[in-house]
C-alpha cells in the first residue's frame, strides 16, 4: 500500500507470518507493520497468537513461512541473539529473569563485561543506573530478582531491553501486574522512548490502556488478523467485539450486597515471607456471607502470603484464621477445604493445576478421595469423567476432550478450568486471588459474572487483586494492603480509583 | 624359604581368598594320616610324571561370586586344574557364579554333563556342595576351603582345607625378627575365617619370637567400599600403620590388601608380606622391592592333587588338610630381599617350620572355635 508522504517510515514489517503448533495454527499468514517511533498495540483473546507472533519476531521459534523486514531490508532471525543484535528488544509475558541472580547479572546476561577472566559487575551496574535515571526507572542493581516485587521485576525487564540498545521494543502484557500509578509511570517512560525514536509493540488485554497509549491497534483472532484501527476510530466496546467476535459486557452489573453472618474471620495475623521477613503484619478483618471483600494492593505487599496463610498453604507466625467461628489449624489446606473454602490461586501454574494430567483429574484435584469420586478403596473413573464433561459444558472450557492434558490449554481456558473446579465443590467461602490475570476480556466477563453469582448465592467472597478496576467493579467493601498491613477500608460504592490508588502507594 | 614356588603361571596375585573352615575342624580321630594325603614329593608339578589316562576324564570347576580372574583364590584353584589338564591330558571347564543362588544350578550343570569330578571353590558353596554330593552319591566332588564335620562329610565329597594360621605364623615369625622399630602391622580383608586365621597365626608368630613387639591390624569393614576390592582404603590403612612406625606389614585382603602393599612401596624402610601365592611373581616392580615374602596357601596344589587322586583312582571322600606337613602352605622365597634376611633369622624361621611340622610349635588357633571371635 502507498503511504501518504507525512507518515513516518516503516521500522519493521512482518509479511505472511505462519506458525503451526501440533494441533493449532497459532499464526495464520499474519502481516503486521510498525512505524518508526509509534506505539502499535496488538490485541486478541487468549490463544489468539500474539505471543507466538512476537516469539517469531524474536527468533524463539522459526516461522513456518513469512518474512521480516527491518527498515526495509529483509532480515533473517535464527535466534534471540540475532534479534538482539538487530536492536529488537522484548519484555516477555512471563518474565525472563533468573530469580537467584542479581538485577545486574540478569541484565548483562548474554552480553557480560569481563575484567581479565572474571566478570565485571561494576561497569554494567553504572550503565544500569544511568539508564535507570534517564527514563526514571529506579532499581537497585545489586538486589536479587527473587527479592523484588513483580512491578520492579518488570522494570528490570525494560531496562534489560534498553541496556541492549533496543530500537524496536516489544512489550507482551506489561501492565498485567501494575498499579494504576505504575501504569502511568510506565506510559511516561514509553512516551520518552518513542520520542527518542524507539518503536514499540504493545500487547495488552486492557482496552483502556490500549486506547490511552497506542497510535494504532491491530486485532488478532484465532491466529488471523481481523483488522487494524486507531484509538480515534474505535472505542472499547468495538475493540472487545473485534477480539471475541461477539458483543461483550465490559461492566459487571450486580445488585446491592445483603451481608449475613461472618464466615471468614482473620485475627491479628502475622506471616513471614520466604525470605524470613515479615510479610503480613498484624492483619484483622472479616468477610460475611453474601458480600465481596476486595483486597487491593500493589504486588508484594503481603497479599500472597496473606492468602497462603488463610488457605493453609503457609503457617502464620501468629494470629488466627477462623471459618464459621472454627479456628483453622496451621498449615493444613485440607482442613480449610473441608470447612467449605474454595480457592482460586494467584499462581495457577504452581498451585492450580497438574499440567501433564488430564483435565478430568485436574477438575477433581481436591475432592478425588471422597464420594462420589471414590467408593471404598477405589476411584470411580466414570464419575470423574462425567464430572469433567459436565463442567466443560457448564463453564464453556475450550478443550478437545476431558482427557487432554491441562497444560496444553490456553491461559484463559486453564483459568476457567480452575474456576470450574473450585465452584463445583460445596462452598461457603470463596477466596479468589488475581482471578483474571492474563485472561482475555471474554473470559474476564465470564469469571466476574461467576464471582458475583457466588456472592448472591450467599457465599462469602474474598477477592485479592492488583487489578484496580476489578476491585472497584466487584467489591462491596475494599481493604487496601500496604507493607503487610491494612492501611484503609473503603465502601465499594463510594470509593474512587485515585483515592484507592493512593492508598495502595501508602499515601493516606 | 620353605616351599618352592609353585608351577602356577606367573600372574599378579592378591591376598589369600579367606576360606571358612578351621582347617582342623576334622576331629583328631579322622585326622588324615600321612598316607591319606599326597606325598610331599608329589610337589611341585614338574615332578609329576605325565600319566596318560585311558579315557578322557572331565573336571568341572565352579567359583563362588569371586571371579576366575581374581588373580587369587579362584584363579589359583583354576590354575591347579589347568596344570592337571596339561599333566594328565584331562578335559576341564569352569563356571563363574554371578549370584550365590546360582551355585546349585552351576553344579547341576556339570552333574548333568556327567563330569567325573566337580570342584567347588570357597566356603560360600559349602552347603550347596554338600547337598549336591548327597543328591548324586556317585558324583565325585571336592570343595576348597570347607571341612565337613564327620556327620555331614559325604563319602563322595572331599574337603580341601588349609592351615592359613600356620602360614600366618611363619610370616609373623619372620616379621617379628626382621622389625627394627619393633612395630608391626597388618591390613586385612573382611573378617571371614581364612582371613582371621591368617591374622591370628601372624600375630602368634610375632609374639613367639618378639614378645614385646607392638602389633597393629585392621580389617576392612563391610561398609568400607566393596569387600576385598577397595585398594584405596587398604592403602590408607597401611599409611596409618607406617605412620605408627610399623616397618613390616602383612597384607591379606584381596585388592584391598594389595592397596596396602602399594602404599608400603611408597614409603622407605618398610617391608610388606603378601598372601595366598608368591606375589613376587605377580605384583608390580615397586612392590617387588619391598615384598619380603608371601604367606602361601596352595589352593592350586590342592585342586591339582584332587584331580590326580581321581586320575590315579585313589579318590576318597572326607577332609584333607593342606598344611606345613604336606607343603600345602608355606612361605614364599625371599627373592631380592634374600640378602636382607640374616642367616640367623633364616635358621630361626626354618626352626619354626620344623616346630610346626613336628607339632612342638602351635599357632594357638582353636580349630573348633570361630577364628574371627
Amino acid at each position, binding site marked *: 500500500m502507498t503511504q501518504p508522504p507525512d507518515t513516518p517510515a516503516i521500522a519493521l514489517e512482518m509479511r505472511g507470518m505462519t506458525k503451526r503448533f501440533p494441533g493449532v495454527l497459532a499464526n495464520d499468514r499474519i502481516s503486521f507493520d510498525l512505524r518508526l517511533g509509534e506505539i502499535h498495540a496488538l490485541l486478541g483473546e487468549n490463544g489468539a497468537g500474539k505471543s507466538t507472533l512476537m516469539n517469531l519476531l524474536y527468533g524463539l521459534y522459526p516461522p513456518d513461512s513469512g518474512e521480516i523486514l527491518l527498515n526495509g531490508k529483509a532480515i533473517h532471525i535464527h535466534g534471540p541473539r540475532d534479534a538482539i543484535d538487530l536492536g529488537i528488544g522484548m519484555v516477555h509475558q512471563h518474565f525472563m529473569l533468573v530469580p537467584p541472580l542479581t538485577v545486574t547479572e540478569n541484565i548483562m546476561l548474554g552480553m557480560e563485561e569481563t575484567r581479565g577472566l572474571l566478570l565485571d559487575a561494576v561497569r554494567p551496574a553504572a550503565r544500569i543506573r544511568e539508564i535507570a535515571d534517564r527514563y526514571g526507572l529506579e532499581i537497585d542493581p545489586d538486589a536479587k530478582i527473587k527479592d523484588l516485587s513483580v512491578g520492579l521485576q518488570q522494570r528490570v525487564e525494560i531496562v534489560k531491553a534498553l541496556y541492549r540498545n533496543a530500537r524496536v521494543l516489544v512489550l507482551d502484557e506489561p501492565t498485567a501486574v501494575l498499579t494504576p500509578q505504575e501504569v502511568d509511570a510506565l506510559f511516561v517512560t514509553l512516551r520518552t522512548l518513542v520520542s527518542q525514536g524507539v518503536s514499540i509493540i504493545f500487547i495488552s488485554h486492557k482496552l483502556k490502556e490500549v486506547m490511552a497509549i497506542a497510535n494504532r491497534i491491530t486485532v488478532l483472532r484465532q491466529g488471523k488478523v481481523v483488522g487494524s484501527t486507531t484509538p480515534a476510530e474505535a472505542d472499547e466496546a468495538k475493540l472487545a467485539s473485534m477480539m471475541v467476535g461477539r458483543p461483550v459486557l465490559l461492566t459487571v452489573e450486580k445488585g446491592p450486597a445483603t451481608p449475613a453472618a461472618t464466615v471468614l474471620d482473620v485475627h491479628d495475623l502475622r506471616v513471614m515471607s520466604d525470605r524470613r521477613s515479615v510479610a503480613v503484619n498484624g492483619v484483622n478483618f472479616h468477610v460475611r456471607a453474601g458480600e465481596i471483600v476486595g483486597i487491593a494492593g500493589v504486588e508484594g505487599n503481603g497479599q500472597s502470603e496473606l492468602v497462603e496463610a488463610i*488457605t493453609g*498453604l503457609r503457617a502464620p507466625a501468629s494470629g488466627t484464621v477462623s471459618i464459621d467461628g472454627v479456628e483453622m489449624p496451621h498449615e493444613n*489446606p*485440607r482442613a*480449610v*477445604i*473441608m470447612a467449605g473454602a474454595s480457592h482460586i*490461586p494467584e499462581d495457577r501454574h*504452581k*498451585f492450580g*493445576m*497438574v*499440567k*501433564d*494430567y*488430564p483435565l478430568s*483429574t485436574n477438575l477433581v*484435584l*481436591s475432592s*478425588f*478421595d471422597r464420594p462420589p469420586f*471414590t467408593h471404598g*478403596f477405589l*476411584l470411580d473413573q466414570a464419575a470423574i469423567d462425567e464430572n469433567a464433561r459436565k463442567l466443560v459444558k457448564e463453564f464453556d472450557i475450550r478443550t478437545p476432550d476431558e482427557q487432554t492434558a491441562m497444560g496444553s490449554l490456553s491461559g484463559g481456558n486453564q483459568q476457567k478450568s480452575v474456576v470450574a473446579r473450585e465452584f463445583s465443590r460445596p462452598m461457603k467461602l470463596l477466596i479468589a486471588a488475581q482471578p483474571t490475570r492474563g485472561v482475555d476480556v471474554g473470559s474476564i466477563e465470564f469469571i466476574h459474572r461467576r464471582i458475583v453469582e457466588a456472592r448472591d448465592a450467599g457465599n462469602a467472597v474474598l477477592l485479592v487483586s492488583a487489578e484496580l478496576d476489578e476491585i472497584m467493579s466487584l467489591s462491596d467493601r475494599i481493604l487496601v494492603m500496604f507493607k503487610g498491613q491494612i492501611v484503609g477500608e473503603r465502601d465499594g460504592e463510594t470509593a474512587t480509583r485515585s483515592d484507592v490508588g493512593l492508598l495502595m502507594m501508602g499515601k493516606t | 624359604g620353605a616351599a618352592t614356588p609353585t608351577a602356577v603361571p606367573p600372574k599378579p596375585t592378591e591376598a589369600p581368598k579367606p576360606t*571358612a*573352615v578351621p582347617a582342623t*575342624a576334622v576331629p583328631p580321630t579322622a585326622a588324615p594320616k600321612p598316607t591319606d594325603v599326597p606325598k610331599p614329593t608329589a610337589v611341585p608339578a614338574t615332578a609329576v610324571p605325565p600319566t596318560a589316562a585311558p579315557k578322557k576324564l572331565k573336571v568341572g570347576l565352579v567359583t*563362588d*561370586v569371586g571371579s576366575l580372574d581374581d588373580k587369587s583364590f579362584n584363579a589359583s584353584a583354576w590354575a591347579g586344574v589347568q596344570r592337571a589338564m596339561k599333566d594328565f591330558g584331562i578335559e576341564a*571347564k569352569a*563356571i563363574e557364579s*554371578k*549370584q*550365590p*543362588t*546360582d551355585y*546349585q*544350578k*552351576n553344579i*547341576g*550343570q556339570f*552333574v*548333568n554333563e556327567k563330569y567325573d569330578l566337580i570342584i567347588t571353590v570357597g*566356603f*560360600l558353596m*559349602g*552347603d550347596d556342595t554338600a547337598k549336591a554330593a548327597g*543328591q*548324586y552319591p556317585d558324583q565325585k566332588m571336592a570343595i576348597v576351603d*570347607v*571341612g*565337613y*564335620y564327620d556327620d555331614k562329610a559325604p563319602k563322595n565329597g572331599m574337603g580341601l582345607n588349609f592351615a592359613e594360621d600356620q602360614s600366618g605364623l611363619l610370616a609373623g615369625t619372620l616379621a617379628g625378627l626382621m622389625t627394627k622399630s619393633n612395630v608391626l602391622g597388618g591390613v586385612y580383608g*573382611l573378617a*571371614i*575365617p581364612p582371613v582371621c586365621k591368617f591374622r591370628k597365626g601372624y600375630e602368634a608368630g610375632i609374639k613367639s619370637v618378639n614378645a614385646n613387639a607392638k602389633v597393629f591390624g585392621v580389617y576392612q*569393614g*563391610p*561398609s568400607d567400599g566393596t569387600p576385598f576390592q577397595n585398594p584405596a582404603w587398604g592403602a590408607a590403612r597401611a599409611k596409618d600403620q607406617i605412620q605408627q612406625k610399623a616397618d613390616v606389614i602383612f597384607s591379606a585382603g584381596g585388592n584391598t590388601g594389595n592397596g596396602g602393599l602399594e602404599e608400603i612401596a611408597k614409603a622407605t624402610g618398610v617391608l610388606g608380606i603378601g598372601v595366598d601365592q608368591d606375589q613376587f611373581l605377580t605384583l608390580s616392580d615397586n612392590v617387588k622391592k619391598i615384598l619380603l615374602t608371601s604367606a602361601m596357601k596352595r589352593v592350586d596344589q590342592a585342586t591339582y592333587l584332587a584331580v590326580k587322586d581321581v586320575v590315579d583312582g585313589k579318590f576318597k571322600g572326607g577332609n584333607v588338610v593342606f598344611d606345613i606337613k604336606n607343603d600345602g602352605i608355606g612361605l614364599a622365597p625371599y627373592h631380592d630381599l634374600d640378602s636382607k634376611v640374616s642367616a640367623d633369622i633364616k635358621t630361626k624361621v626354618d626352626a619354626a617350620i620344623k616346630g610346626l611340622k613336628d607339632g612342638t610349635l602351635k599357632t594357638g588357633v582353636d580349630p573348633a572355635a*570361630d577364628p574371627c571371635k
Partner: protein
Amino acid sequence: MKRFSIASIWGSAWAPIGSVALALVIAGIMMAITNSNPLDAYRALFEGAFTRPGTDTRPTAFFETLVSATPFLVLALGISLSFAAGLFNIGAEGQLYMGALASTMAGFMLKGLPPIIHLPLALFAGALAGALWGGIAGWLKATRGAPEVVTTIMLNYISYSVVNYMVNGPLRGTGSAPRTPDIEASAILPALLAPPERLHWGIAIAIACAIGYWVLMKKTPLGLQIRLVGANREAARYSGINVNRTYFLAMAISGGLCGLAGAIEVLALYKFLPTEFTTGYGFDSIAVALLGGGNPIGIGLAAILFGALVNGATYMQFSAGVSNYIISVLQAFIIVFVAAPGIVRDLFGWIRLRRKPAETVEAAGAKG
C-alpha cells in the same frame, strides 16, 4: 492415564524389540573384536535363558529365568513407586538386605509354628524391615528435608555392616561357615515343582505385587495422591494432600516391597542367611524400573529380560566361554536404546541413508 489399545501396545512394542536387536549387534561386534564368537554366545545365551529343557539334574532354563526375574520384579515395583512420588530410592539394595535379615530371624528364631502362620509372618517381617529402612529415608525427607538420594545411599552401606555383623555375631550358627542357622521348614517358601526345578511361590507373590501395584497406582485415591505429589508437589499441597505424609508412605511402601524381595530370596532359595548373599540386585533393579516405565506390564517384561540375561549368562559362559561382563554391556545398550528410541530411529535412518536416497528417512522417522 493413557488408554490401552492394540495399536498403542504394538506401537510401543516395536521400539524395545528394535532396541534389543541393536544392542545384541553392538555387543556382538565387541565380542567379535575380542575374538569370541557372538553367534555361539547368543545361541547359548538364548538356550540358557529360555529353551534349554530340564533334566533330572538340571532345572528347565525358562523356569530358572523366572526364578531370577522374581527379585527384579518385586524390587523394580518398589523403586517405581518411589519414582511415582518424585523420589529416587537408591536404597533398594539396603532395604533388600534388611528384609532378608528380618525374615531370616523370624524364620529360624520362631519355632513350632504352623506354616500357615510362620511363612506369612516371616514374609511380613521382611517387608516390615524394608519398610522401616525405607521409611527412615522418607521420614528424614518429610521432617528434615534431607534428600533421599543421599540418605538411601548412606543407609545401603549401613545395612551391609548391620547384616554382616549380625550374621557373624549374634546370629551366627554353629556350623563352620559364618551364616545363620537354617530357617525352620515351617517358614520355607515352597517350590512349585520337584527338584531340580527351583521355581517357587515367590513368582506368584511377585505377580500379585505387580497386580497390587497397578490397582494401587491407577485405581485408588492413595495411588493418585502419590502420583500427584510426584507430578506437582505444590498443587498437591494446594489440593489438601499431606505431602510429607505421602513422602513417608511412598518410601515405606517402596522399601516394603524391596524388603519383601529380600524375604522371598532367603525363604525360597537360601533357606538361611549367608554372609555374602546378593550382588547388586538392588541396583540393577533401578534399571529394570526405568526400563519398565512405571507400568507393571513393562516392569514385568523388563524383569524377565534381566532375569533371562543373568540366567542365560551361565550357559553362555559354559558353552561359549564368554565372560559375564558382556551381559552388563548388553543391559546398558538395551536400556539406552529403549529409553531413547530417537537413537534407534536415527541409526536406522542413517543406515538407510547409506543404502539409498533420503525419502526412506521420513519412513523411519514416521514409524517412531
